[in-house]
Each structure stands twice: as structure tokens, then as C-alpha cells.
């Protein structure tokens, strides 16, 4: 199994989720993150003083998938998350040694 971790633009979340469920993915976990990268934040002015926001809001999507699914999942996220503009984010894939469903204790791919 693999753990796919994608950092995407927040407003792309619904599209990414839908494209994943379209592939039969049953679950995923998201969290709020901030990203620093090539995309730079707007310069803002507060009471006459300029400042720039270094970290931009992003959403992290984590989804555990079977080895067969992983390529399709990566592709789906890459497509759904794409706007073509800088700051679209990254997809990272890591090896997942074990997965357990807390409710039942099942492990392996059944747990996903």
C-alpha cells in the first residue's frame, strides 16, 4: 500500500475529492496547511505599513491506497488539482507498511 499526500489549492478540494471517489477511493483525510514555495503571497498594507504574507493557505489531502491504485490516484489528483498557475502544489507518495481499521481491527487493504 501507498500513502499519497497531496498539497493543493483549497478551492480545488471538492474537485479532487470527487475525482478520487470516482476512482473508488472510499476515504481520505484532509488538513489545513500553509505552503511556502515559488508562489509568493500578495503584499498587504496595514495602517500604512507594507508586509508580505510568506505562507499561503493550502489543503493537505492524505489518502492510503493499494499499490495497484496508486498511479491512477496520483494522476487523478494531478488533473483535478491543476489550474496551470503557479502554486498548484505537489503530490508525494510514500510506502505504507500497514493499515488498520480501528473499528474492526481489520488490516491491510481491507482496512482502507
Amino acid at each position, binding site marked *: 500500500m501507498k500513502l499519497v499526500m497531496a498539497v493543493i489549492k483549497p478551492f480545488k478540494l471538492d474537485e479532487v475529492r470527487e475525482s478520487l471517489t470516482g476512482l473508488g477511493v472510499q476515504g481520505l483525510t484532509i488538513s489545513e496547511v500553509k505552503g511556502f514555495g515559488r508562489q509568493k503571497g500578495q503584499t498587504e*498594507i*496595514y*495602517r*500604512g*505599513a*507594507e*508586509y508580505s504574507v510568506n505562507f499561503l493557505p493550502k489543503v493537505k489531502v492524505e489518502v492510503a491506497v493499494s499499490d495497484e491504485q496508486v498511479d491512477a490516484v496520483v494522476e487523478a489528483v494531478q488533473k483535478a488539482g491543476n489550474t496551470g498557475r503557479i502554486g498548484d502544489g505537489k503530490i508525494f507518495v510514500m510506502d505504507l507498511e500497514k493499515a488498520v481499521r480501528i473499528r474492526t481491527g481489520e488490516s491491510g487493504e481491507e482496512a482502507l
Partner: protein
Amino acid sequence: MRSSTKFTTGAVAGLGMIGLTSPALAATDAETAFIFNSLSFLMHGFLVMWMAAGFAMLEAGLVRTKNTTMQCLKNIALYSTAGILFYLVGYNLMYMDVSGFIGSFAIWGADDPGITDAGFTEGDYASGSDWFFQMVFVAATASIVSGTVAERVKLWPFLIFCVFLTGIIYPIQGSWSWGGGWLSEMGFSDFAGSSIVHSVGGWAALAGAIVIGARKGKYTDDGKINPMPGANMPLATLGTFILWMGWFGFNGGSQLAMGTAADVAAIASIYINTNLAAAGGVIAAMILTQVLYKKVDLTMALNGALGGLVSITAEPLAPAPGLAIIIGAIGGVLVVFAVPLLDKLKIDDVVGAISVHLVAGVWGTLAVVLSGADIVAQVTGIVAIGAFTFIASLIVWLVLKMVIGVRIDEEGEEMGLDRAECGMEAYPEFGTGSQRM
């Protein structure tokens, strides 16, 4: 009570009052006038009291979350302190037997000889109503200071400063003008306190900001200014609306009478001018920030409202409404320029109180010249009040700094005054609060 102010600046109304009592056919009787005058103090007094909440909300909205509990605490504490001190010392120092430069040291006590068991015989207003109205003014002065020195001053030293400010400094300079002292004799005119209340608060705040220093990280060594945005804009907006509402009391009540038709008509004019000056300040600040920064800065619009209000406070009665709009708009413009200027001088004023209360306060006091005041008297008043308040405040702040320290240590500033001094988060479930999960 502010007797001499009345004669100096409220001349038309004052004369009116004297004249009006003669035509017997339609005139208000003396007891009715007594009630109206007292009612004006009371009603306008509770509006000014409400400004304490306005300052609290404005400041709570403009500090960062980690200092919000403390800002709330300071505001309710300073309002409490001001009342007690004005009772113990302040009122009599300001208004009783003023020799020219100072009144007398004594606890205040109500004195209404005209009300006896046999009924009302004579009097202008209930002495307690006047005390109440004057008391809420001194609290405003202290509120101004708390905004400037927020996010780094320790609680108790700040409150001790407030004791001196509200018990000694404010009353002494107030005795010179409203107390009937030398400034009032000179013809200095400050109807509701652009200088006497607002710039005094501003000078005390400036002294504090200098002695305490800027917040850690606000100004970098390479001359950069590092904004620390306020945490809660609707709260700051609410605070401004509260202050605006309270200002009808602040200026309207400073007519000091409501017992004649002329007085109530004057109060109506004051309400109108107060409102329009604030409106002028808002619109001016909005347009200016749009032009300067291509965005409209809400906090500047709010400060603009307050700048307009402070500007009209020295003479809210005489100007025509159109002039009031202009006076207020200039106040708003001054604030928008003063805020970054102070930052350039590395004077760290968290909520813009110096720009609003000192800068617009000076402007407002000068603007009375447009309504016929003597420029020499006005400048003398501005300088004398400013010099005395600034120096006296500086001394108190410096002594406090030496004796007990005025500033929280670095670690406490980093973690925020709320945890360091109150042990209590303002929003424990929001942001990085401890109670979220």
C-alpha cells in the same frame, strides 16, 4: 462644575439662559430647569460611561489574540480606578476653590443646599449629576493611554499610572480651564475637551510609549515596519460605533444645561455637528487610503471617525454643519498621515490613539479659532497642557520603570500577556488556543 468654560465658550447659550428666565409667560420654572439640567448630566453621563466599553472593544479588536484578555482587564480596571480616584482626589483638585493653578485636596461630597425638606428653593443642577458627568470624562483619558501601550505594559504598573493620571495630572490641568483657573481667564476655549481630555490622554500615552518602548519585532534594525494586525475587526468596529454614540453625551452634555429652549437647541446643534464631523472623518480617511494604498483600510476609517469626533470636540456648537464636516474630515486626514509618521519615529502606538487623540485634539483646539476664539489663547492652552501633561507623565512612567518595571519580560511578551499575567486565553478554542482539541 465647569462654570467658567460655560461663560467662555458657551457664551451665546449662556446669555440666552440668563435672558430666558425673565419672560414669565412661557418660561420654564426654576425647579423644572434644575431637573432638566441634572437630567442632561445623567443621560449624557451614561452615554459617556458607555464609551469605556467602546474603548475596551476597540482595543480588544486591535490587539493580537494573545493580549486580548489583558486588554479587556485593563479597560475595566482603569474605568474602576478612575471613578474611585476622581472621588477621592480628582474632582476637588479640579473644581474646588481653584486658585488659578490647582484646586484643593479633599474627598468629594454632594452639596445641594437648595434642596431641603421643605422642598426646592434654588440651584442649577444636582451636584451629584455634575460629578457623575465629570467622572466619566476622566476615565476616557485613561482609556486612551491603555490603547497605545497595549501588548507590553504590565498590569499593575499601568494601573498605578492611571491612579496618578486620573487623580492628579488630569485634574490639575483641568483646573486651569474648566476649573476656572488661569487658562480660562486667558480666554482659552475647549468646549468638551479636545485638549483637556483627548490630547491629555494622547500626551500621557506618548510619554508611556517612549518610556516603555516598541513591541518586540515591530521595528527591525533595517528600518522596516512589521505590522501586527489586530485580531478582531468587528469588535474594533463595534467599539467605534459605541464611542460615536457616547460622543453625543460627551459633547452634548458639555453644554452643561438643558433647562431652556436655547440650551436644548444648542444640544441639538451639537449632536448634528458631532455626527457630521465623524462622518467627514470616515469619508476622508476612506478616500485617502484608497488613493494612497489602492485599498480602503477599515482601521483607518474607524480611526478617521474618531479623529473627526476629537476634532469637533473643542467647539461642537458654533460651526455650521458644513464646517463641522470639514473640520472632521481634516481630522480624519491628519490621522491617516500621523499613523505611519509615528511608525517612522518608532513610536509604537498599538491602536493609533496618539494620532487620534493628540494630533486631532490639537487640530480641534486650533479649529476653534474658526469660530472666533483667540489664537494666542488656544496655542497657549495647547502648549501649556501638553508640556505639563507630557512631563508629569514622563516622570511617573520613569519612576515606575525604575522602581517596579513597566514592561513584561521577553518571554512573557512572546507568549502574550494573557497567559503571562492573567493565566487566561481570550479565545481558547480559536486559532492556536489550548482548548481546541
